[in-house]
């Protein structure tokens, strides 16, 4: 707990920081679950290495998308300077903390490249003319270097913003607002480029003969909506435990609900544009990607994405009352997170199971392990600092926010 009140003259002991969650039990539960599931997955790695690699890339992309999505929101809030959102800024910062561990988590993936990517297989790379042409971009060393660059860049960006915010807690320095805003400006440019190329490298290149220019935007859309749902869930959880009493009100939740429906629509818009244009132009090399996803029982998963990732949350979020009801908001957030995972699964797994959708216990254990690890880091981060940026001069106004 970074409690700085003793350093400040005239400052009364800070009630909220004293009631800082003593229950580190969540951190330990999550860590234990990560270790257990991780152990099972490691066993799976030795039994079915190929399946493990695919499950791993889905789960890791999932937690990364949550982290980069939160980072994007955080920077958008800094750049836009929106007042009401200051109350959730600290929670967004906490959601970006796991980004610092991604370089470590990347190692198992780097060890499995040739099991995942056709282009990483040297026999293919030297025979397929298209792969030979692309080899200067799609080759293992450069892939590793690029991935390391993306992961390091996100970790540094998240670190810079968190550090500034922590310093603001103790000093209340106005200049920090401007400094974080400037970091966010170049940070957003960097993040936009790196996340696009990340999605090209990690997901799109699973089928190196297929490409779609909107793919990066599709990844943004999924990450933004998924991380927003995660933020809502985290906020609701902390509210339920009383940590945010008088800080994050139902008015703020309503606002988050409006953003959520906006980005649910945005995801559907991008997904539909990609589908329609490829369906309509009907190039064999492009439609093949969708033909796989619309044959066998992959088709059912495709339909479930339409309903689970768009139609259901859209209609549930439409009434004002639902956006102001923690139960419905939480339910929708969970639904969206589940379908965000399903979306990534749908992007990745048909490369392995081209015939049909075959769930595997490794999918579950790897996801459980990485997600638990992610939650443990976030839970730990929530314990170390006050739940709102108490040094920000806009906070008073943000707390009093009401929907018109």
């Amino acid at each position: 707990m970074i409690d700085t009140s003793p350093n400040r003259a005239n400052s009364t002991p800070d009630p909220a920081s004293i009631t800082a969650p003593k229950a580190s039990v969540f951190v330990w539960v999550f860590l234990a679950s990560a270790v257990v599931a991780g152990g099972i997955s490691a066993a799976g790695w030795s039994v079915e290495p190929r399946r493990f690699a695919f499950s791993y890339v889905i789960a890791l992309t999932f937690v990364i998308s949550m982290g980069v999505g939160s980072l994007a929101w955080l920077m958008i809030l800094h750049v836009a300077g929106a007042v009401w959102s200051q109350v959730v800024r600290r929670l967004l910062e906490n959601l970006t903390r796991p980004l610092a561990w991604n370089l470590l988590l990347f190692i198992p993936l780097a060890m499995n490249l040739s099991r995942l990517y056709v282009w990483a297989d040297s026999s293919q790379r030297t025979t397929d003319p298209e792969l030979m042409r692309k080899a200067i971009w799609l080759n293992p060393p450069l892939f590793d270097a690029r991935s390391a660059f993306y992961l390091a860049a996100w970790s540094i960006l998240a670190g810079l913003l968190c550090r500034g915010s922590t310093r603001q807690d103790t000093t209340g320095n106005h200049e920090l607002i401007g400094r974080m805003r400037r970091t966010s400006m170049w940070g957003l440019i960097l993040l936009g480029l790196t996340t696009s190329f990340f999605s090209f490298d990690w997901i799109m290149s699973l089928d190196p003969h297929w490409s779609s220019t909107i793919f990066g935007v599709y990844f943004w859309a999924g990450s933004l909506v998924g991380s927003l749902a995660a933020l809502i869930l985290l906020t609701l959880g902390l509210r339920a435990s009383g940590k945010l009493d008088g800080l994050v009100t139902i008015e703020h939740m309503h606002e988050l609900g409006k953003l959520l429906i906006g980005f649910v629509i945005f995801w559907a818009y991008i997904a539909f544009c990609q589908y329609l244009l490829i369906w309509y132009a009907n190039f064999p090399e492009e439609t093949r990607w969708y033909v796989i996803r619309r044959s066998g029982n992959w088709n059912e998963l495709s339909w479930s994405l339409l309903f689970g990732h768009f139609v259901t949350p859209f209609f549930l979020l439409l009434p004002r009352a639902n956006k102001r009801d923690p139960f419905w908001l939480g339910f929708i957030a969970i639904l969206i997170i589940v379908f965000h995972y399903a979306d990534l699964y749908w992007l990745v797994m048909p490369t392995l199971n081209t015939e049909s959708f075959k769930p595997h216990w490794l999918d579950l254990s790897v996801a459980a392990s990485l997600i638990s690890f992610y939650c443990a880091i976030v839970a730990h981060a929530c314990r170390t600092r006050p739940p709102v940026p108490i040094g920000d001069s806009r906070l008073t106004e943000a707390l009093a926010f009401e929907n018109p």
Partner: protein
Amino acid sequence: MNERIKEYGGAAPIEPSLIEGGHDFASLTDLVSGLVELPTPRWWWIIFSICAVLLVIGGLMSVYVISTGIGVWGMNSPVGWAFDITNFVFWVGIGHAGTLISAILFLFRQKWRSSLNRFAEAMTLFAVACAGLFVTIHLGRAWLFWYLIPAPNSISIYPNYRSALSWDFAAVATYATVSTMFWFYGLIPDLATLRDRAEGGIRRRIYGLLALGWRGSGRHWHNYESTYLMLAGLATALVVSVHTIVSFDFATSVIPGWHSTIFPPYFVTGAIFSGLSMVITLIVPLRVLCGLKDLVGPRHLEVLCKLILATGMLLSYGYMIELFNAWYGGSPMERFVFYNRMTGPYAWCYWTMMVCNVFIPHLFWFRWFRTTPWAMFLVAICVNVGMWFERFVIVVTSLHRDYLPSSWGMFYPTWVDILLLIGGFGLFSTLFMLFIRLLPMVALSEVKAILPAANPHHSPAPNPRHETEEAEASRETSAPASAGVFDGPPHCALARFDGPGELLEAVKRLVAAGYRLLDTYSPFPIHGMEKALMLKRSKVPMFTLAGGIFGFTFAHSLQWYQSAVAYRLDAGGKPINSPEAFVPITFETMVLYAAFGAVAGMLLLNGLPRLYHPVFRGRSFTRATGDGFFLAVEARDPKFDQSATTALLAEAGGKEIELLHA
């Protein structure tokens, strides 16, 4: 912790007001209405004559092209689309910034938009008119444009709903309709202001009819605001869908350089980018000529510049991803198209586009460019030019070198092409000049609502302008209350209050005293009034939803019936029943009917149009749309008692209290 928060919060810098020059409600009304009411300035005639000359050129060229045929344009095989579609996409794009400012920024509660939205919306309408002109002429036989309407035409076939071109018709037609409606909707309170300021005669009648009998009732404002929010949401969805569908015209094809999945979001950003620079191009001179510097200050311009920078970078992202994918993707033709754009005979167009759209906007990183009007004007001109060239590059360079070198060719514009391009600007600017003379170019009621004095909790500074008047008024209060002409049963007691805060307090007081049939009249919606009047949530969203459901069902079944049942025509190998291809038109129609529902909801719930109402007889009631704040207690209220009610109104601070008869 709360103490610490307060301690830091107290030191927060106070945000400067968006409206400069110390304006109050009356002076703002005078300023904006004056643009319409005062004699036409000489500069207006000079600019208008130039624009009118350009319009005449455009008109003559349109007649020439339609009567002779589009062979007088420079297009030929393989370049079958050139200036016509370039201009169409350019103008549709310009329109998008108007909707961004009026709708999207409204949803994000950006108060600074209030000074700009009216004229930006007008810009949208006129830009869409230009786009409509070009796309209609390009049909060749323009008089047959009605084939696009879903009615069986003279050869008994229906439109092909699986074609992006009929999607385009639905999109542009819906966009024009909804934008006009949104614009007119926002104008209603300001038209009422002009009506009430008019000395009489034809002017008062025309504005009066257009204002639909708007009287600024608190109950009306309640539904009005709800509809405005609905329309803003719908317009946001619409603006994205329109340029998306315009991009489908290209991206659904199999032409290298056109078929790219990023086209929809990339076209939308490009459209907003170009439209914002058109806003700057127009507002920088106009704020000087029309004396609107107080309303459109440096802060407004700076935000516009930042938005141009942001959308410009998103557009650059689109360019970059396209280039990367041209290399990364498998098609050698795609690679060639991009190589040809950069180095072929149209390379100068490509590099003009790159310099104007990608590099020049970065000047807005420098504060000097964001705060110096003439500098930002120059940057905006560059962006306008660059965005026109972007469309030219996309349309022409993708076509002029076909798959086979034997079918390569060039496009050279003819004099008709060039004069028609100029004529388009003539149409746009003429309409715009007429607009700024005939209608308030700033949304008065919205600008008033962001003045600090509009906040009911703001303590008003004494207003010297009205002091004598008010002294007189308070003397009148002691006079008998029933001063009105008696020609019917009493309708209500009307009192005027000094400001929104006083009015809100008075309403609270009367409600506490048991009055229920109250209504307030104010030039803008007062925050908290719906609660004080104990109004339920507006039912407008229900009307909107009903409209949307109807539009969705209607459009989808129409397309299904005509394509899959009535006239089963194989088009491009698409399935006879293609729900995918029906989505764009279904969406557009849904938005169209939802918007109709929202507006109909406001009119029905408010009982408008209603050109006569007893309160209009109030002696100074014309101020209700300017700077007056009125409270009416209906005679039907069970608690109503002539002397007790007027006494209570006077006690609450009411002035010029009078009894009005029906």
